[in-house]
């Protein structure tokens, strides 16, 4: 794009050569071209260096590792190339599909949907509040957001601690469960329900704030027009609000999806997360494979698969975003 822009611009100074000679104008032209090429790269260089060091290099290493059988050795490990063996072994494994993939996908979908729904509802609420209450509610929400994942998880684990936690006691007094014989951390659905609560609680403030930022840009007149046309609140939300800030939802959706697919801390810190196969998700699985089982190849392979899944999802999102953009035009 840039080149096509600069190319027609280049002949412009060639009006002058009549006076200053052909060679000089060529020199100036060349210099200009050189600057046009090098300047953006010079400006980009620092960030490219940082990105390459922090992202590209590890990415290449993980890719390399996933094709190797790696052994830790004093003074530098030894990797033996094994082709796609790690991937083959991983994908033909029952537990990988039954537990790891299933948990990751269902958990991520549940978290993304709930985070966005809750975040949007809170944003709508904040949008209707006056300055004082918006400030108070906003700060309360920020507190949930600011809490480190480790601390948050500790609190949720404490709330749901079998027999002694607040939640089992409450459920027991309502006659729903027998707290003495229920340990939610040993059952898959409750385990992930607790994790979902934790992640949604930690993630919805971001959605709420971002959506709120979108909401305040929607002109009031649109709603007034809608009301005159007799649209109820439900219709106004779907026909005015959603189309008006669709890109915001897209961004929030992409980011939430990426985050919720690779949740690690909130799962790993729960009791029994590393000793019960049915609780593994792709994050904990790849960590345990690499660092507990010393199987760096398989750990890396599952990390690569996670990256690919996220890449595909992001591509689909972005495509739909652009398509809608074109349609709107």
């Amino acid at each position, binding site marked *: 794009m840039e080149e096509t822009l600069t190319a027609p611009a280049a002949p412009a100074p060639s009006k002058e050569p009549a006076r200053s000679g052909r060679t000089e104008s060529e020199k100036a032209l060349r210099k200009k071209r050189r600057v046009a090429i090098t300047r953006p790269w010079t400006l980009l260089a620092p960030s490219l260096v940082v990105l390459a060091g922090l992202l590209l290099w590890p990415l290449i290493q993980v890719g390399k590792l996933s094709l190797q059988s790696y052994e830790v*050795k004093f003074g530098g490990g030894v990797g033996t190339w094994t082709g796609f063996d790690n991937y083959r072994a991983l994908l033909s494994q029952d537990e990988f599909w039954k537990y790891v993939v299933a948990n990751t996908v269902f958990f991520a979908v549940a978290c993304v949907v709930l985070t966005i729904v809750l975040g949007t509802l809170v944003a709508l609420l904040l949008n209707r509040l006056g300055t004082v209450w918006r400030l108070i509610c906003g700060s309360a929400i920020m507190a949930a957001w600011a809490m480190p994942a480790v601390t948050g998880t500790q609190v949720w684990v404490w709330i749901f601690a079998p*027999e002694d936690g607040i939640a089992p006691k409450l459920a027991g007094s309502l006659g729903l469960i027998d707290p003495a014989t229920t*340990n939610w*951390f040993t059952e898959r659905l409750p385990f992930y329900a607790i994790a979902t609560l934790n992640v949604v609680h930690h993630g919805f403030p971001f959605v709420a704030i971002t959506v709120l930022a979108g909401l305040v840009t929607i002109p009031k007149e649109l709603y007034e027009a809608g009301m005159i046309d007799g649209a109820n609140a439900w219709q106004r939300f779907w026909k005015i609000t959603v189309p008006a800030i669709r890109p915001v939802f897209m961004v929030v959706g992409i980011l939430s999806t990426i985050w919720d697919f690779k949740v690690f801390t909130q799962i790993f810190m729960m009791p029994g997360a*590393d*000793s019960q196969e049915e609780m593994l998700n792709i994050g904990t699985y790849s960590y345990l494979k690499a660092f507990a089982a010393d199987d760096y190849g398989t750990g890396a392979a599952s990390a690569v698969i996670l990256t690919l899944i996220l890449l595909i999802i992001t591509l689909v999102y972005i495509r739909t975003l652009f398509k809608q953009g074109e349609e709107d035009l």
Partner: protein
Amino acid sequence: MRKIVIGAVAVAMTMGLAACGSDDDGKDKGGDALDGKGKTLKVWIMEGTNPDAKPFFKELNAAFEKKTGAKVKVEYQQWATAQKKFTTAIEGGADQVPDVAEVGTTWVPQFAKTGALVDVTGDVKKAGLDSDLVEGLKDAGTLDGKQYGMPWYAGVRSIVYRKDIFEKHHLKAPTTWKELRDTAIALKKAEPGMTAFPVAGGAEMFTAPFVWGNGGQLAVEEGGKWKSAINSPEAVEGLKFYTDLALKDKVSPVKATTWLETDVAAEFTKGKVAMTIGGNWTPKALMAEAPELEGKLAAAPIPGKDGGLAKSFLGGSYLSTFNGHNKELAWEYVKLATTGEFATKWAEQTNYFPGTNSGVQAMADKKDPLVEPFAKQMIEGGATVPKSPAYGEIQATKVIVKMVQSILKGDMSVQEAADKAAEEMDAAFAKSE
């Protein structure tokens, strides 16, 4: 053109980064070991064993500097992340490993296999230390006849119980499995608000004595190869007894399925546990946390099925020297720390046992009722986990914990769970060979 530039930048970047790892060739190579002037030893010590390790190391390092002229820099490591940190340093080679480090006994085979640890068998003999080392502990750090470091301190688990509760209900410390079960059932009846005997699903070392106490093994070595034995009839019987305490006799609550040892300790300090497996370091730690328990605790060795002692895991730490640039100086430091005055001092401050027989005996001779049963367990009934580099991996992947939890959850029968664990162990053994 653009692509070429991107490519060039990427290549330059990667080469630059790759080069970073290998600059800084060794300084301080060779030299007279005992003349350590101008040298600094890097020492890694685990955090938490000694409530306040700093005064100890200040004294030790001063003594070492006086002796050799070398300075010492102690860096404290966390148990939870240390293994990863060691692995990274080992990958980095001589420039990155510490000169001396505290290494958990179960890590020794794994680290030794990479070639990072120094074989000190000859040095130990030369120093006349080999005959006094606690056998089980010496064994834990010896592979193919090579000893990788000096045993520094060790601990063992026995039974810790509430003396006051036992006296109130006229109960005695159990000496057989039947007595253990009867006592637990009696406690459950007499003290419904307390956990009689927690079957903590997340505590691997609570399980092992019940395998060993019935003559079973976790794994056996045959002709230099390890093979799992966790699904042998003896082991399964022991596991069944242990898990039935929770499943049939209900002397342990369902919440204990996901408990770790730290959770048991937390419940104990709340006064809600009557009897448990506990380490020799626990009584003092419990009393420090809950002073009202002072005088109310007692200990007893873990009984075997029909009497005698069940073996219990003899765990501890080695001080090992790494293949860094100051090997000889490092060995001097290890010797100073693991023998004589400093070894005793460390044991006293940490409530652990020193790694020498004479040291353990000296502690047993003090006739402290909270020390003596543990000393007996250590000398007569200490056992180590299989000494294969694969066992570190088996522990890290929670094979035993997984097995016990799936039994407690009712997902599998004891035999099924043990068979699965055996399969996983064998896979790990096979991989490491």
